[in-house]
């Protein structure tokens, strides 16, 4: 029960704890790094290096007035922010953090993550719809359109990996990369998947559902207190899931690069998985700091006219090469 095998109690506690702590600390890391990228210092007053800023934020959110608008659809309004963190934590469950570290080992792990990402869009849609506010409705409309269109080629972009590794299970996909990371044969798949992943988790520059410059705060305009906090935490957990999924699919997961394995297999696996995930988390922050939000029609035309053909061509070429090699 307390050993490192998939689904043991220790594993569940570890993944839940690490996932929540990392995603909550990302609030501080992101603000700090956004500061560095714009020649500022970021929050550094609360505790050493401003580490306790997260606690201060949490206290602020929990003690704020939790207002439910009288004109809203109350049940949906309360349920909508709960969906996002729950669904994101569920998709965190299938991610393999190391050999024998993880909550579930589903043979359809990849499909599970897609199902959960699809459910996450309900949080955006219902939140905006239940608020009964025109800006919230605009935000949720944008969110629905964006997630549906980007989910299409997000799925197509990783079919190349499924062809190469012959499996939907994330552990088998990692094991299939012992000879070489999939980022090399699937480079375009990687590009498309990363862009779609950012759009899927509402990360900048694809934060059109909550574009605070145009539609105040989009689908969470009417939310305050911890209900807004749940939206925010869900978004950060989604960011952690995405940055853990990219190494698993394209960068060999827990496998050490150049044979740099050291010590215990589990320890080394956790170290390398953590290092790769951290790299992509910081890359997401850099993208937020650098790139500007596109117009909505630009987003749509970019998705359907560039990303979809690119992922289809990638899938066709991968399939053709695999068939040719099979003889």
């Amino acid at each position, binding site marked *: 029960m307390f050993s490192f095998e998939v689904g043991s109690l220790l594993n569940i506690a570890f993944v839940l704890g690490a996932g929540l702590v990392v995603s909550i600390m990302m609030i501080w890391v992101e603000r700090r790094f956004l500061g560095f*990228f714009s*020649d500022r210092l970021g929050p*550094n007053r609360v505790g050493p290096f401003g580490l306790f800023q997260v606690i201060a934020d949490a206290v602020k959110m929990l003690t704020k007035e939790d207002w439910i608008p009288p004109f809203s659809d109350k049940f949906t309004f309360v349920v909508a922010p709960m969906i996002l963190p729950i669904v994101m934590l569920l998709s965190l469950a299938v991610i393999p953090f190391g050999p024998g570290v993880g909550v579930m080992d589903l043979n359809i792990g990849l499909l599970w993550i897609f199902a959960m990402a699809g459910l996450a869009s309900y949080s955006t849609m219902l939140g905006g719809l239940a608020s009964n506010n025109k800006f919230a409705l605009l935000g949720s409309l944008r969110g629905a359109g964006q997630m549906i269109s980007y989910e299409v080629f997000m799925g197509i972009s990783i079919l190349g990996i499924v062809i190469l590794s012959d499996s939907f299970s994330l552990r088998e996909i990692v094991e299939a990369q012992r000879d070489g990371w999939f980022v090399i044969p699937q480079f375009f798949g990687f590009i498309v998947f990363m862009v779609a992943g950012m759009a899927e988790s509402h990360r900048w520059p694809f934060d059109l559902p909550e574009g605070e410059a145009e539609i105040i705060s989009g689908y969470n305009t009417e939310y305050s207190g911890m209900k807004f906090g749940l939206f925010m935490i869900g978004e950060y957990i989604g960011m952690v899931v995405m940055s853990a999924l990219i190494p698993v699919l394209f960068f060999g997961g827990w496998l050490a690069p150049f044979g740099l394995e050291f010590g215990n297999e589990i320890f080394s696996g956790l170290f390398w998985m953590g290092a790769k995930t951290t790299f992509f988390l910081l890359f997401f922050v850099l*993208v937020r700091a650098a790139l500007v939000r596109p117009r909505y029609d630009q987003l749509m035309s970019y998705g359907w006219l560039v990303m979809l053909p690119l992922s289809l061509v990638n899938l066709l070429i991968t399939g053709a090469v695999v068939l040719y090699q099979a003889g």
Partner: protein
Amino acid sequence: MFKAIGKQIHIIWSQIVTLWLVFLHLFKKADTVEYPDVKPYMFPRWRGRIILTRDPDGEERCVACNLCAVACPVDCISLQKTEDENGRWYPEFFRINFSRCIMCGFCEEACPTHAIQLTPDFEMAEYVRQDMVWEKEHMLIQGTGKYHDYNFYKVAGKAIGGKGKGEAQNELPPTDRRSLLP
């Protein structure tokens, strides 16, 4: 077709350049001044907290002429004139409401005796609104402020105790009109 692909490649390339240029900012020194720990240099002519100064002899410079109160665009200065046994004028009370003061410095410009002066101190926040109203004893300092040598009653023609008519600096003795007869 190729033109469209070239345009897309150009767009992606410009995004990558943006990412790289922003990444380089990670290694630049932050412009932030960490204020309560690092105090900024305040220039001597900065218009901040208002003080009342004394002349080189240690007497109050203010003669309660009310010109500062007239010049004040937000009417935050109020004072009352009184006179001591030597005939010197001085304010009975001098009150500035700093919750209205806009630190424009017009009072300093209007003052004929260099009594009221603005200093580079800007940290004047209070928790109670009434604490923003400062009385004369809060503002009166022991020194001369920015003008060390000026002493109004030494150059003015007004007679006060210990200094009669015609005894001020650069002042001629009063003319005896009857001796001017032809």
